[in-house]
């Protein structure tokens, strides 16, 4: 019941099950990142990276079965109510209601369907419901800041939330994080994993934030800024922002298959 049709077929058709020995020795690799479009690990302006970023060069890993596979998700994985962050036990959170929606595509433009999108964020005052967040701003008992949604057959997702507030952190003197929502996606393979942060257009803190600015490529960095979207505004209820997410796609170059 918790299995998708593809997996049911595999299970029933065990006579055709591919043994590890008979599997193709070459798998279709995923594209490598374009230079400059992903952050470097060591970014001294982001002070925490100094003691935590690896210092040895990374070793290039060919994509094997391990890297090109990933877990599927049961249709019952996510309760649809978790797409609405604006209420807890029937009580409404405080702040400006917004929808955040978009599509999850791969680098070849193909929708990434039925994949898990997890989000977390501060409340309207810039405070996280987390024991280690000691920022002197009020908690909202009706806002946990936690949401989950599955993409549909077109790769689309949507959730309703409260616009998060900016908050101070101690990276440097008078450091403030611009308002942001954290996104986490697994995608279809080990190598398609993505954790990112979505920002808001026109935020005056963006030029000063070392985390937003850690990526060298201007276009790649600016794609983390959502767009205000009249089309999806809910009249009398919530403003709307659009944020499309691109996961890594298969390399288009031909590959050898044997066996």
């Amino acid at each position, binding site marked *: 019941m918790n299995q998708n049709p593809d997996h049911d077929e595999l299970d029933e058709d065990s006579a055709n099950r591919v043994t590890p020995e008979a599997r193709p020795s070459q798998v279709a690799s995923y594209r490598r990142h374009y230079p400059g479009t992903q952050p470097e690990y060591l970014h001294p302006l*982001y002070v925490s990276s100094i003691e935590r970023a690896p210092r040895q060069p990374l070793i290039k890993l060919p994509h094997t079965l391990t890297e090109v596979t990933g877990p599927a998700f049961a249709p019952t994985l996510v309760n649809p109510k978790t797409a609405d962050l604006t209420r807890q036990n029937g009580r409404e959170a405080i702040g400006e209601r917004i929808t955040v929606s978009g599509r999850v595509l791969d680098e070849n433009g193909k929708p990434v369907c039925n994949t898990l999108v997890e989000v977390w964020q501060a409340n309207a005052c810039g405070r996280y419901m987390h024991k280690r967040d000691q920022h002197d701003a009020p908690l909202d008992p009706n806002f946990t800041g936690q949401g989950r949604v599955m993409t549909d057959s077109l790769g689309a997702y949507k959730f309703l939330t409260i616009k998060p507030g900016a908050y101070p952190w101690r990276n440097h003197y008078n450091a403030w994080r611009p308002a942001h929502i954290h996104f986490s996606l697994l995608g279809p393979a080990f190598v398609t994993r993505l954790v990112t942060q979505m920002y808001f257009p026109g935020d005056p803190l963006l030029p000063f934030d070392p985390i937003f600015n850690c990526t060298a490529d201007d276009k790649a960095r600016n794609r983390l800024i959502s767009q205000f979207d009249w089309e999806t505004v809910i009249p009398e209820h919530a403003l709307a922002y659009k944020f499309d997410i691109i996961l890594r796609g298969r390399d288009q170059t031909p590959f050898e298959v044997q066996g």
Partner: protein
Amino acid sequence: MSLQATTWQTVGPYFRIGLEYLNTTELAPAGTPGEPVTVVGKVLDGNGKPISDALIEIWQADASGEYGGIVSNPADGAATAFSGFGRIPTDDDGRFSFSTIKPGPVAGPAGTMQSPHLAIRLMMRGLLRGLTTRMYFPSEAVDSDPILELVPATRRATLMATVTPGSPSTLQWNIEMQGERETVFFDC
């Protein structure tokens, strides 16, 4: 069509709010075929201090070397089957612990076979992108593993779990971000 993958950003210090749902310290539900193992370890920063806000994700094959399980709703309880996926945050002392079954060998490049291994993704405040590493199992023939062959011999030990004396099913494996025993991380 050609698009560029979205840029990574750090998980930050408060990821537990959003990434708690799939946390599990038991990857293999009772009855999963295979040899049970427990893996314990610590994540250490460049000063050797434990990192209490790291998150480890695991991806592994089943005992016969097959990938491709299904992640179920944790509330489904008994219906949950082995998915090969696990997510474990470190505790206040930088420690992690999880139980699973030892995976079987899986196909590697150019007709080779890879020794049993766990694919590991590591995320934490201070890491702007996730890091990839692997954990290999003791007493396996790893000399011919096509991935370990890419790693300088002097650094391979950082990818090898060790057996706990007196408790052969408990494996120890630490992750060190920097220093002489810096764990090997992969660009994948």
